[in-house]
């Protein structure tokens, strides 16, 4: 009998098979079976890529020749310009900072947003609608609705907070309420909720974060949880949205918020980060 070569199975495991690789149908390189539906990469794709790269090189060169990158005076740690702004792509976060607790706006909310973005494919696991914009006609309507809804809500929130900030410095009278004397306040006029001096003194003594606890933590957290839920419920109610569709609504809300807050932070905040209309922002102090 010839000697047996090679690795031997362990006693009792003679029938075990070795699995070399498990090939899933999805994960192999897909060469489409319909011949007429494919195109050679050379030249068809490469031509498009080449033209796009040429246009961008040319465009970049022209912009670089026409518009100079900004350069201000040498840095001076003793003098903060008014207003001081982060790079434009972080102005959405800086805008959040004006409305809530720094830890919430600068760390917690962005972290949650990024994790939520990453989690999208693990929530919406269906394969419906791959490769078509907005899933369906319904999806298109949901996108438009979400944009309008988000802009309206954000407009109200930003304006309301600006009014509250103003009412901190001086009571708002609108010319008619100068005779009104709210209980617990020292000056006549309307104090918007949570900022009458009576409340601030009480909160400093009784709440963990002092007077900023409710306006900087509770209200923003509530708002950020409440309105997305409302959006999803509305979309489910009106369009009987499935998971992909309410996900579209939430993502659209996120994108709209991101872009709108970037715009507000960039074009509507002037000295002291006060709110102005975009065409009437005073020039920054040096």
């Amino acid at each position, binding site marked *: 009998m010839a000697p047996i070569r090679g690795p031997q199975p362990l006693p009792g495991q003679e029938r075990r098979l070795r699995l070399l690789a498990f090939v*899933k149908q999805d994960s192999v390189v*897909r060469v489409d079976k319909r011949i007429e539906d494919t195109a050679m990469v050379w030249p068809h794709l490469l031509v498009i890529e080449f033209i796009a790269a040429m246009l961008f090189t040319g465009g970049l060169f022209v912009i670089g020749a026409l518009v100079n990158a900004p*350069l201000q*005076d040498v840095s001076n*740690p003793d003098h903060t*310009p008014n207003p001081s702004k*982060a790079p434009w792509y972080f102005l959405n976060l800086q805008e959040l900072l004006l409305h809530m607790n720094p830890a919430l*706006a600068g760390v917690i909310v962005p972290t949650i947003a990024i994790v939520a973005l*990453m989690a999208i494919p693990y929530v919406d696991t269906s394969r419906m609608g791959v490769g078509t914009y907005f899933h369906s006609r319904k999806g298109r309507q949901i996108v438009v609705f979400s944009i309008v809804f988000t802009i309206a809500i954000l407009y109200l929130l930003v304006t309301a907070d600006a009014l509250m900030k103003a009412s901190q410095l001086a009571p708002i009278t609108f010319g008619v309420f100068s005779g009104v004397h709210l209980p617990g306040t020292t000056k006549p006029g309307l104090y918007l909720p949570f900022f009458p001096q009576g409340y601030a003194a009480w909160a400093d003594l009784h709440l963990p974060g002092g007077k900023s606890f409710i306006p900087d933590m509770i209200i923003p957290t509530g708002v950020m949880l409440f309105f997305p839920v409302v959006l999803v419920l509305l979309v489910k109610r009106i369009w009987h949205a499935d998971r992909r569709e309410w996900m579209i609504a939430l*993502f659209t809300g996120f994108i709209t918020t991101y872009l709108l807050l970037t715009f507000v932070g960039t074009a509507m905040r002037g000295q002291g980060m006060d709110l102005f209309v975009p065409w009437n922002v005073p020039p920054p102090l040096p």
Partner: protein
Amino acid sequence: MLDIPANVWQRVVKSSLWRSIFRHGYPDSRKNQSLAVFTNVFLHLHPVKVRRHALAIPYTWCMGGLSFFLFLALTLTGVLLMFYYRPTENFAYQDIKDLETVVVFGQILRNMHRWAAHGMVITVFLHMIRVFYTGSYKPPREFNWVIGTLLWVITLILSFTGYLLPWDQLALWAVTVGTNMVGATPMIGGEILYLLRGSLEVSGNTLLRFYVLHVVGLPLIAGFVMAIHFWRIRKDGGISGPL
């Protein structure tokens, strides 16, 4: 016109030097077109064939490819800028001034670098929007979406670290405001802030730290993550399309 005589061209193409470099003929046949993509280290990111809908510009907007293109343009202009830039408190601002005034083509290089950086932030964001609305994150591409989100964050940090380097008022205060956000982290905010800045307030140490991250650390990380991103696009079946 500049016509190369046919016999000269033939001799060049048949020479052993040419054939040692290009292992296929002119790509005018299916076989040679395949080989042109297949045997080229730069083109082999691509498959040989793609589904026709992947060519539709209204579908992809070319945004992913253009983001990568801008990354390459930023690398090139950035390396050139490094020849004249010293990341220290005393020299940084003057070096930028010199780039603008005494270095030939320095101003346009700096402009291109800056606008390309802003452009990349925009193209990456648009790419993400496109991928979401076309449902391209769905199985089997889930993890590539996660990697893509990570690349978006890396792009933002790359741009932010570069923002400090001119060392002017705009840079100093934008970075002061930006890093202060990180400092608001509960519990360990102060420690993270010190690690980022290398000092208690933004200083020359911060400039050096951001410079090293901007020109070496983050581009390396971005390069690795991009390699994974592109590789997975291929492995997951190329550009997404209707089933």
